[in-house]
């Protein structure tokens, strides 16, 4: 079909959206992403039965958390489509692109630009140091 979708979108492939955790979504924002959308199979069509439903709940958790810390839960979405439905994939990409443009830049990214020293891990031996841009 050779359809085009916004070039601002970076695809991270996972075996099933059931693999996606709240932590993965948060890490994206911590590293400066303006928005994250999880694209899973249609509800009821999950090869692993409930992977996309689990992803849906985790997206909701991430939305709530991001709302409460002031980043904005509207920057996260769950979308469902069939793997052969390219036009719908493009539509979701364009909708997400527009939503992110509307929400503006991730406030964390602006803060990171001016305060990069925070990324240093605190001390050897502790499994910290997952700071932004590290």
């Amino acid at each position: 079909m050779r359809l085009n979708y916004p070039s601002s979108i970076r695809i991270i492939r996972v075996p099933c959206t059931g693999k996606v955790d709240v932590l993965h979504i948060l890490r994206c924002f911590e590293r400066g992403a303006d928005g994250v959308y999880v694209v899973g199979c249609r509800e009821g069509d999950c090869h692993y039965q409930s992977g996309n439903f689990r992803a849906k709940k985790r997206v909701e958790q991430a939305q709530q958390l991001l709302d409460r810390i002031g980043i904005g839960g509207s920057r996260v979405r769950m979308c469902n489509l069939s793997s052969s439905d390219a036009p719908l994939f493009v539509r979701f990409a364009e909708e997400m692109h527009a939503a992110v443009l509307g929400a503006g830049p991730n406030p964390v990214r602006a803060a990171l630009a001016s305060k990069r020293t925070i990324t240093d891990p605190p001390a050897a031996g502790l499994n910290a140091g997952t700071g932004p841009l590290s």
Partner: protein
Amino acid sequence: MIVAAKKPIEEIIEQVKGLRSVLVLGCNECVTVCEAGGKKEVGVLASALRMYFLQQGREVNVGEHTLERQCDTEYLEEIRNNIDAYEAVVSLACGVGIQFTAERYPSKPVYPGVNTCFMGAALERGVWAERCQGCGSCILASTGAVCPVTRCAKRLLNGPCGGSTAGKCEISKDVDCAWQLIVDRLKTLGRLEDYETLCPVKDWSTDRAGGPRKVIREDLRS
């Protein structure tokens, strides 16, 4: 296991908002199983705190670490060389772990990241229910292994009260009457005659009524 629930992030932020560095400390035991304070929850909380402080324009060093157990001194020693890098600790362990961490590091403020709820079991994924109150003198042998101390709202030891209706407790239609469960269980075991045996007055001095408790095993002491 000890069941805990995550504290609202706003409450944790309120505790740590004035700090310049904080260690989020998890525990690999009960709170990991009930998904309130394990390595994953440590990661989520630390990430959320980092983002919160960043957008507030604050430089706060948020570290992450998860111990095998926070209720044993040998595991708590693991952070001795690193804890000075932080002003305070947010512990995601149960109340025991939080207090024990504070006892081992007297000069370090330790804040709770979870609400410790009870000793219970997982009924299904995401649902936990209380099963033991640690009364210190177990009577499960005579009650068909259903605990009236925990599961009866009135802790009755000799049959149900008048508030038992259709197997449910008067406090809520979602709460089973413990004594209905006991009778059903004894019936299944063919031991219904046990129900006729009066339970003598229970020694509550081993419960919280006797104050904070200790178990001392002389055979294990060094």
